[in-house]
């Protein structure tokens, strides 16, 4: 079975986002960039499926600026076999990303797509569901457990009330949540090997798809800061403040 994983290059999760003074967006110049953390979990899952003989080939796909090749190389160092970089300098909306992924899935006869549940920059949480819809495939979102057998996927999903288990016929799209696995760190030899793995490059604009944005960003601003708080020196003082000053208990 062939697995496709989507890997997005995003601002590193442990770096704070600053809004540009002109309010046009978040300042990413010179910022540390990383693979979207959920996508690391997706890659890890794919690699485990290959290690257990369930999958034959893992294709890591990234859509974004040329530098997204670094993100693909990280996936290759973790154990993906080859990469596809679909270049686009314009930020694509999840709908457009889903359209691009659909084309790759069809070109490559992929049986399982593993994506992150959410990109931590746009916080959209849409791409996997959109892709499944466009392909007419079932979806297993927010997965904390994935088992494949007999052409089916059993997916445990993290939902607001607890956990839900669904069974999907393959091919399917699964989006992964934090508790699915703990992604490995690539070893130095594997990072070296990854440099030689093939990465196919194409331009998003050449795919003949309608990728035009449907949303105009009118402005980006910082949220209002919270007023500075005070230190209390004892439990008694805390209780007093909550009761008599804040009046919340």
């Amino acid at each position, binding site marked *: 079975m062939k697995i496709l994983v989507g890997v997005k290059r995003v601002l590193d999760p442990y770096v704070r986002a600053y*809004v540009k003074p002109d309010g046009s967006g978040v300042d990413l110049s010179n910022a540390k960039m990383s693979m979207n953390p959920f996508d690391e979990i997706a890659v890890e899952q794919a690699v485990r499926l290959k290690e257990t003989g369930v999958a034959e080939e893992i294709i890591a796909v990234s859509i974004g600026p040329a530098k997204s090749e670094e993100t693909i190389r990280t996936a290759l160092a973790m154990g993906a076999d080859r990469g596809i970089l679909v270049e686009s300098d314009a930020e694509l909306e999840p709908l457009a990303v889903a359209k691009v992924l659909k084309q790759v899935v069809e070109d490559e006869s992929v049986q399982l797509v593993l994506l992150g549940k959410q990109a931590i920059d746009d*916080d959209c949480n849409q791409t996997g569901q959109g892709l499944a*819809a466009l392909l007419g495939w079932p979806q297993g979102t927010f997965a904390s457990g994935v088992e494949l057998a007999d052409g089916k996927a059993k997916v445990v999903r993290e939902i*607001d009330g607890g956990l839900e288990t669904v069974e*999907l016929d393959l091919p399917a799209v699964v989006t992964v949540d934090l508790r699915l696995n703990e992604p490995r760190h690539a070893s130095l030899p594997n990072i070296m090997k990854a440099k030689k793995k093939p990465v196919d490059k194409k331009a998003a604009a050449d795919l003949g798809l309608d990728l035009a944005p449907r949303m105009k960003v*009118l402005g980006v601003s910082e949220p209002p800061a919270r007023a500075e708080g005070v230190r209390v020196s004892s439990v008694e003082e805390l*209780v007093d403040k909550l009761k008599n000053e804040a009046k919340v*208990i």
Partner: protein
Amino acid sequence: MTVLVVAEHDNSELFEVTLHSVSAAVKMGGPVEILVAGSGCGAVAEACAKVAGIERVLLADDPAYEHPLPENLAPLLVGLAGGYSHVVAAATTYGKNVMPRVSALLDVSQISDISEVFAEDTFERPIYAGNALAKVQSSDAIKVVTVRTTKFDAADAEGGSAAVESVEAAETGAGSRFLEQNLSQSDRPELTSARVVVSGGRGVGSAENFQMIEDLAATLNAAVGASRAAVDAGYVPNDYQVGQTGKVVAPDLYLAIGISGAIQHLAGMKDSKVIAAVNTDEEAPIFQVADYGLVDDLFEAVPKLTEALKK
């Protein structure tokens, strides 16, 4: 211009989040209608009919909708969407699962997790874990929207008298089957709507120690939340997680116990009215957002706090 709100429920009760979606929908303009898709869910439709501001309730009562499988729900919503300017649901795991499937089938770009409605086509949404707010204008004919429920007051559950109309079930999408649900059992109020939330982090140290947090919450009639680290370590189930990739809460009082205050955690609680934190590390970032900060060992402070509050 009519707005369709998708009701969230368990076939017997309407979930409170839906009332917040209704408030957001009202701000988008036009009459508001509600769709109840479920199985044996007539009581939910009756509850929706009483919600203030609702013009009509559509009831799709069919075994195919017993469990909210997106493969089945999306075709139903797509079939109905043509009659509406907006299709709206709460940004819960239910809404997040179904709505992007609907938007892709309609070839429109979903506007996720909105925190404000400026105009019929213009919304605010948090990005980068809430460290930035984007004002976006949609050019799509049908706007598919999910709502950050803490940003919109609940609509009145009483006062309306809408008619309930049945709608035909749509064809079902093949390929997915519901197997089981394991819902967390708790006597505590629901996390996203509680007036007081007590959350514990890695500092609490173990599942057994978490009983301390539960006891404190019980004296305050509070919901219990947790950081990702506490969930990952198995102290509490996944549905307790507050944060960028967990639940967003905005109670009157949020008590953070043994939580450092990482960006991703703050994303889920920094709109709380009052924040109090207990942490041994006076440099912990949680103190930057806390209205009241107590530098203390939680194993000393929490039992004392519980005792003091019982008085």
